[in-house]
Every structure is written in C-alpha cells, then in structure tokens.
C-alpha cells in the first residue's frame, strides 16, 4: 500500500465545511496587509483527510504494533490511560495564563510530580519546564555556567564529555558557549580515569555523564569521578536518558551529581508521536537551586502557585513561553502514580532482566557483545564488525533485514566508538516471547547473511518501500511539494 500526497487529493474549493464558520467575516484591515493569493493548503473533504491520515498511520511501525528495541530511546508501552486522562476537559482546555484560582487541580499535579521526581533522583529541587532531554541539558549547563559566574569563575568554560556520549551533550555545551573536551572510554566501557585526571583543571566547568552510560554499562567508578571533578572545582551533570535502568536502585543525587535532566517521555512512558513531544525536567542539588529555570510550582498554605523571576532572581530564566510541555508532564504524573514505588523498582529490574537475557542469548547464538565482561544495564551493544569484514554485511543491512521480520531495528551506529554496532534496548514491558522471536529473527538473518549475502543486503522487501536513497535525498533536495512540482 502506498498513499498519494494529500495535495494530490486536492480539488479547488473543497474543505471540511463543518469545521469552520459558515461565512467569512468581513475584515477591517487595509488591503496592503492582506495576502494576494491563498496558500497551497490541501483542499479535501473531511472524509478524505481522515482516510488519508488513517492510511498513512498504517505505514508506520510503532510500539502499539511492533517490538521496537531502539537503544537509548526506551520504547516501552505507553499506557492509554495517560493519554486519555491528560486530555480530560478542564486539563486539555486550560489556558496557560489562567489565574491560580482556576488552576489548582493542574498545579497540584505538577507539584506532586516535582516531589516524586526529587525522591526518585535524590535531588533537592526540580523544575519541570525543559521541553525535551536536550533542553534539559541546556538548562543544566546554563545553571553550571551561572553558578560559576555567580562565584566570579568566568573562565570556567570547558565541559568534559565522554566520547560515547549522546550527540546532544556536546551540542548543548556549545550552545551554552562552552568548549567541549572529549574523554576516551576504556575497554570495559568506563570513563578512562587517567584521561579524566589529565583533562580537569582550572577551566573545568563540569562533566556530562550518563550512568548507566550509552554503551549500556554502569559506570563503576562514579564516586571517584565525582571526587576528581568536584576537587577541580567542576560540577557533575547527569544525562538522565537512562534513568529507567536504575529507578529505585541508585540515585543520581547519591552518586554526586549536581544537576540532572530526566527524559520523562522515555522513563515515564508517554506517546512520542513519531518524534516528540518530550520533557526534560531538571533536578538540582543545593548549590544550583537558585539558578533553576522558571516557573516552578510551590505550595503555600494548601494552595499552589507558580514561582517566577521575583521568587528566583538568579534563575537562568525561562526556556519556553509558558511552563513547558504540560501535557507530557501530566502523562508522566499519571504513569508514576500507576507505578507507585514498587512499580518503579520493577521498571529497572525487568528492563535489566530483559536486556541481560537478550544479551546472553544473542551471545550464545554467536553474536559479539561490545562489552562481554560486563553486566548489561537496560541496554547493550553488539558489534557486527566481523560480519562486515567477512561478508560485507553491515549493521545497517541487519537493521533493514529485521524490518521484514516485523521488528523495528535497534539503534545503529551509535555510540560511534563501537564499529558496526547495534544498541539494543528491549524495555521492561516486552514479554519473553517477544524477545525470543527477536532472537530467532537475528539468528535467521545471520544465517542468511552467510548463505545469501546479496539477497540479505537488498532488504527490506515487505515494507511500503524498499531501501531508500539517502544520498539522492540530500543531493536533489525535495523538501516541499509545490503545485508546479506535480507529476
């Protein structure tokens, strides 16, 4: 099945008439301000729009239809209740600037969410406003910067980042006007301590770490690292994308981190709509409290209200027009309440069980683990470098082949330091049967890679399209349909 562009369904003069006022009101505007020709929006009936976008939806893999072990992305089940309850009338139609008198229900949820996140992370205060992990990182590094500036340490402008780190870490440091110092990862997947000791110094603003790290192992020397960085006057930033793996087992605050972001859209599952929205709530230790991004909810005599620049004059400020992705936060709140404290611990336990099981079984089947001596956290890496060398079959080939089995591919080519890698994260909500099916598919692919290499490299065969030409996409850039580009 393929589906034409919505523009190809267009005929002049059509639209969903029940959805707009039945007359066009007169304008009290000078003609010079008005547009001369109508924009090229689709002209379709309500049925045509519904049918088109329903059909398009079916051309997607998703959690609700497929196992989706995309490493670092924590593609777990999003309880339907989270969506439904966040969209209740009263919540979904509340104006962001409604006065406190008309906001107590919402504010109470946000306050309790802040409190729960504090307790999960061991941090001292939480601001919910960042709108994704990367914006949480931005908030965090800006706070680190503000902290040093407040102490007159204007020269502290270096952020240490392990080479395995997610791309948002170095990109964020740059956005905050910092320079990035890359740290090597040792053969076991831990930070190279000697290199770290060499790297720290008077210009060190801080370090950005995720633990468990993006190579899927727990950084065992975390206390040592904290000591080294703190001793050098730097602060520790925790990239909470992987917090899922350690919920209720160990807390970033206890590891020595000064600031943390949490990808609530991963950990506290919520619909990500093909690429967001997210939430990157930040937690801080005592030192960074004055610098938190605003607004933050406070409770005073049983009433809730927003704290703003008047309450937090040293704040790094606002990162969004209102208070961030409220709807995502409501979904996280609902999910956390449904998990409860025991449920949260189980998230970590079963995410870890699933990852270690999958790793053990794949290893037994002949796949090469990137860090075979280590426990997997909630995710792990296999490297296909032997297959690539011997057969010319790459990680990308295996990823595409998996699609034909009805499995979304794991993350490919990240982290960059492991050649031909697949970063696999099954998550706790998948059953053993789902994992076993995936293992069978991997073994079958491996066998086909040897038996019929060329056939395998042509995968996928059963999807709406075969392998797409990315080079052509970038070279013959076609990023918008125009009436004159119609066939």
């Amino acid at each position, binding site marked *: 099945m393929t589906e034409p562009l919505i523009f190809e369904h267009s005929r002049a003069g059509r639209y969903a008439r029940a959805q707009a006022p039945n007359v066009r009101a007169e304008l009290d505007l000078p003609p010079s301000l008005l547009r001369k020709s109508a924009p090229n929006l689709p002209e379709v009936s309500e049925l045509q729009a519904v049918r088109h976008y329903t059909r398009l939806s079916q051309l997607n893999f998703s959690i609700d239809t497929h196992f989706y072990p995309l490493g670092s992305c924590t593609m777990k089940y999003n309880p339907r209740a989270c969506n439904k309850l966040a969209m209740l009338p009263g919540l979904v139609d509340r104006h962001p600037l409604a006065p406190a008198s008309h906001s107590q229900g919402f504010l109470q949820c946000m306050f309790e969410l802040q409190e729960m996140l504090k307790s999960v992370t061991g941090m001292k205060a939480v601001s919910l406003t960042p709108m994704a992990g990367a914006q949480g990182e931005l908030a965090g590094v800006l706070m680190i910067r503000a902290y040093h500036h407040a102490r007159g340490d204007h020269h502290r402008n270096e952020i240490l980042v392990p080479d395995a780190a997610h791309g948002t870490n170095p990109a964020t440091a740059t956005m905050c006007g910092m320079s990035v110092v890359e740290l090597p990862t040792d053969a076991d997947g831990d930070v190279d301590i000697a290199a770290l000791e060499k790297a720290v110094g008077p210009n060190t603003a801080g370090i950005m770490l995720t633990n468990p790290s993006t190579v899927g192992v727990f950084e065992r020397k975390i206390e040592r690292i904290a000591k080294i960085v703190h001793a050098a006057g730097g602060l520790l930033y925790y990239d909470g994308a992987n917090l899922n793996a350690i919920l209720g087992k*160990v807390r970033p605050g206890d590891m020595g981190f000064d600031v943390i972001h949490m990808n609530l859209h991963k950990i506290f599952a919520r619909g990500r709509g093909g690429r967001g929205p997210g939430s990157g709530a930040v937690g801080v230790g005592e030192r960074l409290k004055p610098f938190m991004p605003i607004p933050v909810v406070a409770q005073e005599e049983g009433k809730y209200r927003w704290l703003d620049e008047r309450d937090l004059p040293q704040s790094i400020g606002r990162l969004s027009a209102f208070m961030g992705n409220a709807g995502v936060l409501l979904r996280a709140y609902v999910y956390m309440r449904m998990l409860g404290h025991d449920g949260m611990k189980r998230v970590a336990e079963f995410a870890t069980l699933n990852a270690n099981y999958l790793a053990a079984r794949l290893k037994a089947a002949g796949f090469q683990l990137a860090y075979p001596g280590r426990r997997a956290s909630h995710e792990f890496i296999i490297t296909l470098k032997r297959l690539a060398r011997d057969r010319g079959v790459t990680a990308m080939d295996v990823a595409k082949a998996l699609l034909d089995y009805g499995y979304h591919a794991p993350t490919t080519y990240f982290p960059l330091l492991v050649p031909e890698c697949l970063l696999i994260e099954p998550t706790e909500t998948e059953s053993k049967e789902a994992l076993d099916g995936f293992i069978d598919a991997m073994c079958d692919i491996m066998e086909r890679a040897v038996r019929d290499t060329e056939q395998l490299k042509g995968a996928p065969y059963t999807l709406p399209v075969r392998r797409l030409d990315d080079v052509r996409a970038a070279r013959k850039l076609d990023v918008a349909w125009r009436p004159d580009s119609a066939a």
Partner: protein
Amino acid sequence: MAFIPHTQGDISEMLAAIGAASINELFDEIPESLRVDDLPGIPEAIGEMEITRLMQARAAQDRGALCFIGAGAYEHHVPAAVWEITTRGEYYSAYTPYQAEASQGTLQLIYEYQSMMASLTGLDVSNASLYDGASAVAEAALMAVRANRRSKSRRILVPRTLSPVYTRVTSAIAGTQGISFERVDFDVATGTTPLAALSEWEGEDITALVIPQPGFLGCLEDVDALTDWAHAHGALVIAVVNPLSLALLRPPGEWGQAGADIACGEGQPLGVPLSSGGPYFGFMTTRMAHVRQMPGRIVGRTEDLDGKPGFTLTLQAREQHIRRSKATSNICTNQGLMVTAATIYMSLLGAEGLARVAAASHANTRQLADALCTVPGVDRAFATPCFHETVLKLDRPVAPVLKGLAEHDILGGFDLSADYPELGHAMLVCATETKTAEDIASYGRALSTVLKQLKVA
C-alpha cells in the same frame, strides 16, 4: 506487576539463561554504598480506575471559565478528527523515523507539513518543528548569526512589540554565545514599531532584525518598511508570525522588496489544544539558500532501490547526532505529535477554512472591544489595525479587575502593566471564533458589575 508481562516461569528461565541467581544480582556492578532500596517519596501504586477518578476531580477543579486571554496561546475549535487520528497508536507510540522504510507514514506526513508551512509563510523550506514559539525565536537568532556571513557584529534587534516572554526566552537560550540582543522601542500611540525607532542603528552592522506580525499588543506592523530597512542594512529578517493569521495576512516571504529570510513562531493555533501551555510546537521556514543553517529535522522525498518515491530524514549532517559539538542546534526530540495534529488540522480546514477561522476571530475581537468600550472607564489603547487581539485601557489597575472577573468565571485578559508600564492600566484581550455574541455580552455585563463593585469598595 502493572505493565510488566513476566510470569514466574519466565523469570526463572531468563535468569538461568543469563546465569544469575536473582534479578538483584544483575545490579551487582553498582557500588554497594550507593544502593538504595526504597523510594520513600513515591506513593503506593494505584490502578487506572483510581487515577481516573483522581484526575477527573483535578480537572473538574479547573473547569468552566470563559477565557478571553490570548497572549501567545489561543483557544480555537479543534475538530474531533484531529486528535482521534493523531492519537492512533501508529502515530502516538512511534519515535523518530530513523528507519525510514518502517516510518513512511510519519515521514510523508512531515513532508506534507513542511509543504504547508512553506506555502503558508511564503518561503521555500520548513523544518519538522522546534519546541515552541519562544524557543523557535532563539533558534532563529542563532541561525541568523550563522547564515548572515557578511555581518560580523552578532547584533540582533528585537522590538518591544515582540512578546516580552519570547524576548526573555531568546536571551536565556541564545544569550551565552556573544550575541547582543538590542531592544527597539515602540510607539505608544500606535502599538507598533515605527521606522524611526531604528534610526539609532542607522548605518551599523546589524546581523538580524526580528519582526513580529502581529505584535504582542495585537497591532499589525508595517512589515514592508521594516523588512526593507533591515535588508538595506545587511541584516536578515526574522519574521515571528501567528500561522493562523497568515491565512489572511501577507506571508513573510512577500514582505518588502525581498521578503523575510526566516519565519518562525508558535504553531499552537493550528489544532493544538491550550493544555496549560504545552506541548505546542515551534515552526520555522526559510529560503533554500539557508537550509543548511536550519536547526531541526528535515524530511526529503527521494527514491527507493526500485525507483519508487519515498521519504527520509535528510541533511542530517546539520544535526547533533552527526555533527555533535558543531551541530546547528542541540535539538533531538521535537514536537512531532503536534505536527501530526497541525497537519491534519490544516488539511481539514484548507486555505478557505483557515481564512474563515482567522476572519471570525478578527471580527469577534473587534466586537469584544466594541462591547467592552461601552462600559464606562474602558477604552481602546490604539486605533491601529489588529488581527485578533487588542489592548484596552482601564481607568484603574488591571489586576483587581481581572480577579473580580475570575470570580464570575471569566478570564478577562492579560495584564500588561508589568511589561508595558508606559501604557498605564492596560490589558490585552482576545476573542477567537469560539466566542459567541452571548459570550461577549456576558463579559460586558460582568465587567460593568465588577467595575461598579470595585468603585463601591
């Protein structure tokens, strides 16, 4: 175990395959000293039934007011089809389309979205969304600095008619990279940015000029003059627009002689509910010449092995996962689901439907202002043409009046006195197409009651 499918048998078999005695053993690399075994601040689990009742009660607390606040977030009718389709599992529970072949639905939808936004703004190319309108302006500022190679000054002019909170967000996000954001004053008589206010920078090296249309005070700017001034000074033009207004108003791509260079803004009016402020989405479009400086994802149309058309993420070399510390932005997760909703919304409404919504909002706001100005002590602040927001002046402080109105379950507007003290007791009001004549009349009645009571008090 809510949401966890493992049976006891599964657990034993899995541990055996791993060679571990217990699940706890899997955490043995975590230093003993750091281990916790409880989460004291987290309550007991409750079931879906209990949380449903709880959330219904919370939602009920905040319900039922008639809202005339705009100020960056607008109540519009959202067709039922929009969210019934948007929340389909295949959209709702997917992620970034890294495997293009398995995500053609999402990718084609984004391509369609990009096409719509490009046409709406009169520019060539759109990204796949940014976080929100405010942060989009920050990204646009950073982009302008990269794109304007002739300018060395890193000076960006920001009119006071840009939403004050957008201005603050832009500084917070983009303020640490040596950019100087310089404020351009407005004319208290017209609520707009006069060309004269730019005379201060006459002949200087300016990297970009931000032009909001409409301005935060609701008034429509002379975008042609401002655009031409900027271009004459070698500055790029960053248009900050309400996308709904573009159903009626001249698109940024057609401003002045050469058109704006970057357009951005808040996408919320296009089918996204108010939802306490988010998730919304920031949009951004630009000319093809600047595409490599754009932040965010971009989808392109290409061909598959068999020559069949298909869609994929493209120009990824701009992005953080490839370019790392040299990326155009750190953005990774964006506001995709909102883009899904907006794309369906625009498809349902079309150009004509959108124009009707925009025109009705415009007309209702005029009627609201007319109605409220019949109340003694209330007056229009400006005679300038406006889209769907306007400033009213009161004969006394705004805050207690708004409070009084809230007691009548009317959210009367946005108090401007903190941000624009020179306007006196001013508030910004908005009536979109959702407001009926009766709604407007009740506001009028409530306002006159409140003003009378306050007088007495």
